[in-house]
């Protein structure tokens, strides 16, 4: 029996449909990500779960209780916002204590749980600071603590990392995941960043235009994209149509072929691994981009453009624009997509 059940959920603003026929279930303690481009309905879906928006159709149950029509105050759901939404007139302690005080807990209990919360997000020494005295990462940790001390049944995270710089984003990402696993907290995370989704989630629901187009673990979604949208959204897949597939790698298909950039090798540079490779394809380098541990080449072949990722082992590998090379595609790793 799953913990969270969403059945046939639908929502429209006036005439414009936000999402429809949303169905999914989540187990207790699971970290689930709603991933999708902006405007796909993921944030509105999250706000419906929180009770901040009403739904037009369908129902939501948590632990067997139907919460579809409950006020947000009574759902036992906590939420962290992209804008932090800290109360500017309160210091760290009062922000974290706000929800506990609303529950009319004794002040001793409030102080004890606030202290736990502060320690959990490692904000010791900042208790009496006001939000404007904190950095973005610290603010979001206060917001996280404010949600966690409520001991919510579900934690909702609405793009909590999007306003932070890259380094803070990575460390906070890990911290959130660790805390979530420690507390075994059922968590729904909304993001448009595929890297965040792939690294953090137990399961990903990929959304597009108000539909969940694919759900699965990070690995399933990454290696087995269900359609060309997923392939395009996750992992920079090369998409080949029927003619291109035939011409480039001599494969017959009725749909499209998705090829990951790392399953193409450059003949003179990549070590051969005895895989099942296509015949060499002649191509010239159009551009190269250094992505840290990976170099991404954009190659121009006769029948189309291919993106090739190469592990960045030494600078000798940096090939300049216009160089002619031979490519081979690992035929075991191509996927047919609708």
């Amino acid at each position, binding site marked *: 029996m799953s913990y969270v059940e969403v059945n046939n959920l639908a929502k429209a603003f006036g005439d414009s449909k936000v999402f429809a026929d949303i169905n999914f279930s989540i187990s207790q303690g699971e970290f689930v990500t709603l991933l999708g481009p902006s405007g796909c309905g993921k944030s509105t879906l999250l*706000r419906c779960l*929180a*009770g*901040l928006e009403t739904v037009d159709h369908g129902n939501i149950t948590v632990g067997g209780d139907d919460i579809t029509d409950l*006020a*947000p*105050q009574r759902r036992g*759901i*906590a*939420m962290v*916002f992209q*804008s932090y*939404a*800290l*109360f*500017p*007139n309160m210091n760290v302690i009062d922000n974290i204590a*706000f*929800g506990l005080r*609303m*529950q009319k807990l004794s002040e001793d209990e409030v102080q004890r749980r606030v202290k736990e919360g502060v320690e959990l997000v490692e904000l010791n020494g900042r208790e009496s600071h006001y939000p404007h005295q904190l950095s973005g990462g610290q603010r979001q940790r206060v*917001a996280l603590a*404010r949600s966690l001390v*409520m001991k919510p049944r579900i934690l909702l995270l609405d793009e909590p990392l999007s306003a932070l710089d890259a380094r803070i984003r990575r460390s906070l990402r890990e911290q959130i995941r660790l805390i979530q696993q420690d507390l075994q907290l059922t968590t729904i995370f909304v993001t448009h960043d595929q890297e965040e989704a792939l690294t953090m989630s137990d399961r990903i629901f990929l959304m597009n235009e108000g539909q969940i187009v694919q759900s699965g673990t990070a690995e399933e979604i990454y290696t087995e994209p269900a359609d060309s949208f997923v392939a395009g959204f996750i992992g920079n897949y090369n998409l080949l149509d029927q003619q291109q597939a035939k011409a480039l790698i001599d494969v017959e298909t009725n749909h499209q072929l998705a090829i990951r950039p790392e399953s193409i090798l450059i003949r003179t540079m990549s070590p051969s691994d005895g895989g099942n490779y296509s015949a060499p394809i002649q191509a010239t380098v159009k551009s190269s981009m250094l992505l840290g541990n990976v170099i991404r080449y954009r190659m121009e072949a006769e029948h189309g453009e291919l993106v090739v990722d190469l592990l960045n082992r030494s600078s000798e590998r940096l090939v300049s624009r216009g160089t002619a090379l031979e490519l081979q595609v690992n035929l075991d790793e191509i996927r047919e997509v609708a």
Partner: protein
Amino acid sequence: MNSNSNRIHYVVVYSLFAILLLPLLSTALYSLASQWGATILPDSLTFDWYIQLWSDPRFLQAFGHSVLICLAALALGTILTVPTIFVVFYYFPKLHWVMNILILLPFAVPPVVSSVGLLQLYAGEPLQLIGTPWILIFTYFTIALPFMYRAIANSMQALNLKDLMDAAHLLGASTFRAFLLVIIPNIRKGLMVSLFLSFSFLFGEFVFANILVGTRYETLQVYLFNMRQTSGHFTSAIVISYFVFVLIFTWIANRLNK
């Protein structure tokens, strides 16, 4: 070159300041002079005019009337505008343009014109308010409205109202408690500044006070007007007392604004 042009700026600013200050200084000096006739400087200085003024029961009463009417008008303004602005911002953002027109109306109609209208409306039954302090309280509320609305609306705009309310709701607060505990404290500064500034200019309002109420409930400005035939030293003392009082209020407003 740079320090030279700087000096010119200073000269311009300070000259302007001096020109504006001159009448005030001479009034202040005049209010402190026992006699000031055919000489360049007064014969002798005295606090007599101030002692006489501040022991005149009619002045004290007028002063009290002014304070009372201004405070009542501002209290009414706060009670009516703060929740209204919240409701407009939170529930009906589409009504912004209506509010913007509404708060411009008091500017659009000159006081002399609107006081004639008010006289017509409230001179007789069923609502006979002319000559009572009530008409001034309601009228002053309308004059202060644009200033209060703008200041409070700006503070509200600076807040991430939707997310703050959502967060408060999810943490268990009702809309009313969220408004009280989260929104009010965050617009308090803007509200206080607007209250102090509004108080300062309402305190000096003359046209409405004179036409609508006059001596039946004498305010400070009407008192000053009625005293115009008495000694110039005495009226100077009124002006300076008024000025110092307003100066203190404006100064507090500025301090709050920092």
